[in-house]
């Protein structure tokens, strides 16, 4: 974990594959540390990339490796069988074995592992809260429980990489919210590289450390999430209303009376609904550009609880009546989506000093998540 910057083993994915309707040409490197999100619309080719990594799909050419370990290399003819890759695969539809109990499902891969397991069954069962489910059959479980068992089964197979293929897509919002902390726990406790596939930008923002954005079979962008999420160019790929700012902050105060927590970052304090974590915990906050308003002076009589002073650093015109304005607050860019009409009315321009306003209410649990100890990983390494 203390490896010097730049020499972490990498997930190396380079592959080409032609389909009748899609031509896949994907190249990305990601650190083995943390969660790499593979994001893109349906049909962007995410699933094919995951299949190729797992060994279900043979690329026409390329190389797939985790650190030194090559799964596939068309140049040297390496192509490991699925079972030799030891990729923990968490499927959207969980794929628990219906004839086995939860306990037997969990240990299916563990039994087939020759070596000293790094993750013991008892540890995984405790981590995922599966203790009371062990004797049950999969069909008696709820969707969320099923996915927890699937995650436990995958990590107990002692994988070198965890592939999560839209693990939350089949769940309703409350179940999603229930499962997210478990995935964060996996990232925190196991130090296992995770490739997380999703078409839901909220999930990606909440979980990912590294982002690979796919579009029509190609990698549109890839790099550390914090850098990419605020990149205006990524907007069209994730949808105008999902674009925004992601920043790291530390819990600096809990106010019991107002039930709010304060999060400090370089540009000041942000107040959010109370977070159940200790002061000093690093958090990740996502502020959607559409939730941010701009004012020329600090409005005295307004309910909005987050007001930060900054300077406009960039302005980009978007499709339709929209302007994408980036305001530098203590050196951190916060994006706001305003109408062109507002821009003209206020006379917004680069260098102008403005107040950035956003409601604490807009920062719900979906927008605030735990983050690993801060690691600025450059995409250039």
């Amino acid at each position, binding site marked *: 974990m203390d490896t010097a910057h730049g020499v972490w083993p990498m997930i190396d994915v380079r592959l080409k594959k032609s389909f009748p309707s899609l031509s896949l040409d994907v190249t990305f490197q990601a650190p083995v540390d943390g969660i790499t999100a593979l994001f893109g619309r349906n049909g962007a080719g995410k699933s094919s990339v995951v299949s190729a990594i797992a060994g279900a799909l043979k690329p026409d050419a390329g190389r797939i490796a985790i650190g030194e370990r090559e799964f596939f290399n068309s140049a040297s003819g390496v192509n490991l069988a*699925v079972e030799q890759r030891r990729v923990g695969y968490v499927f959207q539809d969980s794929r628990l074995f219906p*004839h086995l109990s939860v306990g037997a499902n969990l240990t299916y*891969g563990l039994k*087939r592992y020759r070596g000293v397991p790094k993750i013991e069954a008892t540890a995984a069962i405790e981590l995922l809260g599966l203790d009371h489910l062990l004797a049950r059959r999969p*069909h008696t479980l709820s969707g969320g429980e099923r996915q927890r068992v699937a995650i436990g089964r995958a990590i107990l197979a002692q994988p070198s990489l965890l592939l999560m293929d839209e693990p939350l897509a089949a769940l309703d919002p409350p179940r999603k919210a229930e499962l997210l902390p478990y995935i964060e726990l996996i990232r925190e406790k196991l130090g296992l590289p995770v490739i997380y596939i999703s078409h839901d930008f909220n999930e990606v923002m909440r979980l990912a450390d590294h982002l690979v954005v796919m579009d029509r079979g190609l990698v549109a962008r890839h790099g550390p999430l914090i850098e990419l999420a605020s990149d205006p160019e990524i907007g069209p790929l994730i949808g105008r209303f999902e674009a925004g700012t992601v920043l790291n902050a530390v819990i600096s105060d809990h106010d019991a009376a107002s039930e709010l927590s304060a999060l400090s970052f370089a540009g000041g304090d942000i107040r959010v609904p109370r977070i159940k974590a200790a002061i000093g915990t690093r958090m990740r906050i996502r502020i959607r550009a559409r939730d941010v308003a701009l004012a020329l002076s600090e409005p005295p009589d307004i309910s909005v609880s987050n007001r930060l002073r900054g300077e406009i650093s960039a302005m980009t015109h978007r499709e339709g009546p929209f302007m994408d304005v980036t305001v530098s607050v203590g050196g951190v860019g916060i994006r706001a989506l305003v109408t062109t009409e507002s821009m003209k009315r206020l006379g917004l321009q680069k260098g102008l000093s403005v107040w950035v306003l956003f409601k604490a209410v807009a920062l719900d649990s979906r927008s605030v998540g735990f983050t690993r100890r801060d690691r600025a990983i450059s995409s250039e390494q």
Partner: protein
Amino acid sequence: MLLFAPLSSLSLFPGPPQFLSLSLIAGISLLPSPAELEALLLSLKVALVASFVSLLPAICIAWLLVRSQIRGKIFLNVLVHAPLVLPAVVIGYFLLLGFGVHGPIGSVLEDVFGIRLVFTTAGAMLASAVMSFPLMVRAIRLSLEVVDPGLEFAARSLGASRFDAFLSITLPLMLPGVLAGFIMGFAASLGEFGATITFASNVAGETRTLPLAIYTALQTPDGEQIAMRLVMFSSILAILALVISEVAEQWTRRMVFGR
């Protein structure tokens, strides 16, 4: 063989139990003669061995037809299903050509292993196995088709080899169908007539199973009572097999899926 040998002697039945002497239809006793009992037990033996021997090949063929990417699947499918559509006598004749004393396989079996199929119980078993094979394959194949290949892939991603995944995941999940296939095969073997009489002939105690015994009885003057009794045994056995198949399938389904 050993299982059935003591049973085939009537000495086990010291006197006719009361219910057996009841007349079902006026004048017909339900008590089988030694010859009839012999036919009954032989039928059970032939059908059991034929079904057991067919089981593994049937599972393999079903797998090839459903999961493999081999060429010539249609040819294999047609070959397996031929006994369903061809006259049984034709199948018996083909068996004679292949497994007869002068046939390419039959002569090797006889010369090298000293096994003769014509006129023997083993021959009756082969004829029954071939005739009931398509039914068995069909039932097993249907059960394999509903097993999600995604589960096999999941098993392999967890470190199981292809064969391990088949044994630990696919086979248990298709067990109800395998069981149904086995019992279907068994029931069909009990009724096999045409191929058996053509290939293995009609030898009392060797190849004269229930259907052949019924046929023989009908050919004999005053054999109607015997025929009627054998027909009843035959029907009871067939219906029993179907009921057991149904119950067993539901039972395994509950075992496998817990519902």
